[in-house]
């Protein structure tokens, strides 16, 4: 455990090496939230409810996304694809440390930093824009919310690794794979851009068969108290299913990929 704690500290310090990069990344996140904020406040000028949300709930959703995405969608494991391509993966394989735990620890360090900044960004924006943020105080929502976040983090971790490992077979897919699956599909189908329940029921049903809605949309829905207990428990079970399934697939692909790995450049 101590070595992972040490790794966490080192990774945390590494995040400060490219400070400007990190700050710009956060600025970009805030800009995205501002677009969503202005879009939805314009839609609510007439008051009332839209897609079952009132203004407070939708604005809480938007600012909740800022925090949840900082926790779930920030990742260091995206660097694995580059390591496979450059041959740097060899260095990880030689270290007396479990590969998956190594990257999960590094993920936690970047998540901690992103969460820290996201918290203050949200606080700042909520105060400046006078957003009527809905604070959930009911423990029966907060507990499953926290649990669903942990599972969402694991789902995203395995998804990232799965995309990374495509590089074993198709090195030219390093950026393209991450672009299409992580920057486009995950962003839209996770609920990071808009709440998924504005989509038609049939489309929602299809999307719920995928792991993406459980990354952002599902945890935020629990926080907002929009889900009945049975739906919450059902969703958490689906999250558990995805964690187990994806971890098995990643393990399988990892073993196959290592057989293919040529340590190019080493």
């Amino acid at each position, binding site marked *: 455990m101590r070595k992972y704690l040490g790794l966490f500290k080192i990774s945390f310090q590494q995040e400060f090496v490219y400070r400007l*990069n990190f700050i710009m990344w956060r600025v*970009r996140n805030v800009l995205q939230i501002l677009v969503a904020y202005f879009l939805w406040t314009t839609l609510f000028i007439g008051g009332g409810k*839209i897609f079952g949300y009132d203004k407070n709930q939708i604005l809480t959703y938007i600012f909740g996304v800022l925090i949840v995405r900082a926790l779930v969608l920030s990742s260091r494991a995206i660097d694995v694809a580059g390591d496979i391509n450059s041959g740097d993966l060899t260095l990880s394989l030689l270290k007396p440390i479990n590969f998956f735990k190594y990257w999960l620890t590094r993920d936690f360090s970047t998540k901690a930093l992103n969460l820290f900044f996201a918290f203050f960004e949200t606080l700042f924006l909520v105060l400046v824009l006078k957003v009527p943020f809905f604070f959930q105080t009911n423990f029966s929502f907060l507990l499953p919310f926290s649990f669903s976040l942990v599972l969402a983090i694991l789902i995203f971790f395995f998804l990232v690794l799965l995309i990374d490992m495509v590089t074993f077979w198709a090195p030219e*897919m390093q*950026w*393209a794979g991450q672009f*299409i699956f992580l920057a*486009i599909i995950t962003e*839209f189908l996770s609920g990071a851009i808009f709440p998924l329940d*504005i989509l038609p029921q049939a489309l929602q049903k299809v999307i719920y068969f995928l792991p993406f809605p459980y990354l952002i949309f599902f945890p935020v829905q629990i926080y907002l108290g929009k889900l009945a207990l049975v739906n919450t428990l059902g969703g958490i079970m689906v999250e558990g299913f995805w964690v187990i399934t994806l971890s098995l697939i990643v393990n399988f692909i990892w073993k196959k990929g290592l057989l293919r790995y040529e340590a190019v450049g080493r």
Partner: protein
Amino acid sequence: MKTLKKYFKVWWLMSKNSFMSVIYLGMGGIFFILGKVLRFLFFIFFLVFLLKGTKNLAGYDLNQTLFFFLTFNLVDVTSQFFFREVYRFRSRVVNGDFDLVLAKPINALFRSLLGGADLLDLVTLPPLIIAVVWFGKVLNPNTWQVISYLFLIINGLIVAASFHIAVLALGIITLEIDNTIMIFRDVSSLGRFPVDIYKEPLRGTLTYLIPVGIMVTFPAKALMGLLSPWGIFSSFVAGAVFLVLALKFWNYALTKYSSASS
């Protein structure tokens, strides 16, 4: 005229080289295009579902809102197609290769701004133009509105070019490009929706200071007949002012180039 022909020939050669390097990406390139198309379609779906529920956005109906979005994409994709080389400029300055650009008998700004047209963006342009024409027709514009739209789109591209020139100049002075260009793109993406949805002072800032409004919202409004002649005139003046300022900044930045590492 002779100079123009020479520069067009050089641009054509540089673009061909750039296209060949993209073809080398193979499946990666195809997935990039697929990703861009998916992102576009997802946004279209989002707008359609959103406006089916709300009926209008800041007074604009679904067709008008989609047209704003398409116009944003037209300006965004076209400027990325032409100005992709800006994204590669930093390494030239950092490792001193920019010396070689300066030493060539061709304008250094031309080489740095237009030296690497992007095939991946070119592929997405024709369907986008068809969609713009299709949705534009639905709005029933008259000839004057269409002409205004076309000229304001060109003006929008001039503003986009000015910003890319400013980013290059900043790159020479600060060695920072990647984040600046991404911030510019994020700010310009505020133009996905008409700037009318933003509150003051953000709306004014986006209209005149960081002229996303002039780049994207004004052309679309002109086609809908919602832009006054004064609005059209001031857009062209703003475009010219931004270009002159950007060129002055570029010339200033060149005097600060230290030719490091060369």
